[in-house]
């Protein structure tokens, strides 16, 4: 099978508001950053794939405006998913595997600031039984967190009890890690004990358990084989990638587990060798604990040194950023084998897992 690697990654600074720029104006510097990193012009890219969501923008076909930023005229070979950019990356990866392209540009972006994100996200739910109740995204995550706290076998991968302090510890660790991430929206944290003095937002979740709402963009360049070696000193080879999803009705799922993550990880080859780094797309603290268990991540694995989605969660981009952060760690020699995970939908509805590796230098 063809070897395909992530050879460049870029992201915007993630911010609560970005009214002074349109989507394409927010995105374009990121596109230029990744193209400059590999020394390619837009017209030297074989395939372009993007992820975004009209419901965030409040406009139909909003992605077409963003396409201006890649120089899409005369028409380029291009595709779009109404999903997180991690799934756009998956599509581009299959194109490269099939030998239809040597290089691909993948980008995604989301501006949550124009709307009320908690309301907007209700529109992705079952339109017959669920969406008419307008259950907001934080409330649904809180149902999952409570289920985890209630579970009799409430133990994470380190066999410690899952309680609200364990959730706060995830928040504190993530946001302290984000102090080294210049793009993060929320950085720094009081210790977990202090966080527990805050009031609940939607019990059992406090504000620190929830991701910041913000605007941002990200992009990666993929390349195959020797092209990847030419463009990047240490390509982040995609050894495997898979995505799976849960049944859509929340009431038929065991919310404390994520079988789709485990299956995707298995299919991606995640369990064939230990990883030294994992970038998990866990917008809510409780979700990190669920993912750690499904992925069997122990003490030896650095989880979300970027701060993860608790430090910046630009919709449609935060999953792609996990793949990008994991790849960037391999590029700079900070990791040799990394797991990257992206999620979509309520309560870890859909999950993607990729295994990335660098050559031994």
């Amino acid at each position, binding site marked *: 099978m063809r070897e395909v690697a992530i050879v460049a990654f870029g992201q915007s600074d993630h911010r609560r508001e970005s*009214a002074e720029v*349109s989507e394409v104006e927010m995105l*374009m510097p990121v596109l230029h950053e990744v193209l400059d990193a590999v020394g390619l012009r837009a017209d030297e890219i074989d395939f372009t794939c993007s992820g975004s969501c009209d419901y965030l923008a409040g406009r139909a076909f909003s992605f077409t405006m963003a396409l201006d930023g890649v120089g899409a005229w005369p028409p380029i070979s291009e595709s779009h998913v109404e999903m997180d950019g991690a799934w756009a990356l998956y599509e581009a990866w299959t194109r490269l595997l099939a030998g239809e392209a040597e290089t691909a540009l993948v980008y995604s972006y989301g501006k949550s600031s124009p709307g009320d994100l908690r309301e907007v996200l209700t529109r992705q739910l079952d339109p*017959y039984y669920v*969406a008419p109740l307008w259950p907001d995204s934080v409330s649904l995550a*809180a149902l999952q967190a409570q289920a985890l706290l209630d579970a009799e076998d409430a133990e994470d991968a380190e066999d410690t009890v899952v309680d609200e302090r364990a959730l706060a510890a995830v928040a504190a660790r993530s946001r302290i890690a984000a102090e080294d991430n210049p793009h993060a929206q929320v950085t720094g944290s009081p210790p977990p004990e202090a966080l527990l003095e805050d009031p*609940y937002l939607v019990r059992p979740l406090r504000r620190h358990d929830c991701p910041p709402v913000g605007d941002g963009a990200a992009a990666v360049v993929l390349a195959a084989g020797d092209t990847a070696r030419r463009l990047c000193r240490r390509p982040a080879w995609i050894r495997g990638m898979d995505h799976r999803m849960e049944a859509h*009705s929340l009431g038929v799922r065991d919310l404390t587990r994520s079988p789709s993550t485990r299956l995707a990880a298995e299919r991606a080859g995640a369990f064939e060798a230990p990883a030294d780094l994992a970038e998990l797309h866990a917008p809510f603290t409780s979700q990190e604990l669920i993912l750690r268990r499904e992925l069997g991540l122990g003490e030896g694995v650095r989880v979300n040194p970027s701060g993860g989605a608790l430090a910046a969660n630009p919709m449609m981009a935060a999953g792609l950023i996990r793949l990008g952060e994991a790849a960037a760690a391999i590029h700079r020699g900070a990791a040799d084998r990394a797991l990257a995970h992206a999620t979509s939908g309520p309560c870890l509805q859909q999950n993607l897992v990729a295994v990335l590796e660098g050559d031994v230098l």
Partner: protein
Amino acid sequence: MTPAPSPEVLQAPLVVEFPFTRSLGPVQSAFLTGLRTRTVLGVRTTDGRVLMPPVEYDPVTADELSDLVEVAPTGTVTTWAWNPAPRRGQPLDTPFAWVLVRLDGADTALLHALDASGPDAVRTGMRVRIRWAGERVGAITDIACFEPYDGAEGGEAVPHSGEFTDPVTGIVAPARLDYTYAPGRAQSRYLKALADHTTRGERCPSCRKVYVPPRGACPTCGVATDEQVEVGPRGTVTTFCIVNIKARNLDIEVPYVYAHIALDGAGLALHGRVGGIPYDQVRMGLRVEPVWSEGSRYPDHYRPTGEPDADYDTYKELL
């Protein structure tokens, strides 16, 4: 070249509202019709589990399901979350708990609201029952919410034909989302200038094309257009159509002409209505200028300037 001034950010409210009309399959139709008569239906899977709310296909095996059963209006909370600040459209307008409830006789849980006095009155495992809406139409909101219940447990699910008189075959699900739209840097500059009756395009630094209206990027070169160029006010009709359909909320007599107009100095044509001339006399090459109505931020329409028609060669690249 005019250096781009830092624009004040333009923002405007934008409401997106759709009454989604959705048809129902046989299982969903029976379930929602049942709610109208205070009957709660689930569906039995081929391996004997009872799914409530019922679905048309088994989420595990993908088997088509049709074996309807009636379950109890009482059940057990399987997880909950306290919502201290109800939002628009949610089942209750006072603080409540979101709950997943497994009704007696069912194997899966339904998402809904629980009316409780406070978070300390809610726990996983607590017993609840349906509080029915006073007026029921065949929708999930026929369940007003759940309420605490300490009566007897309901029994096993019992077979149900799913047949009702006057079954519900569809739902209308209104959806409204409120946005604050911000057009960004380039379009803010354009709209601000337009409000002063000046049309400013933006030039691509790479291919030199002038975009009107500017969107912030040159779609050919993929770079920002940040050099502002005043264009027009006059322009040339490059192509047009005659509109015979009256638009709702638009006070314009039909037929009228809608045209592509290349403003002088612009690298592409914009859209505009052509007035001040009988519709059947509008032609390619017609020279036009904008007409501003009192206090308007944009031209109402374009009218003939009286100049000779433009030569085809001057606009053939702008069609």
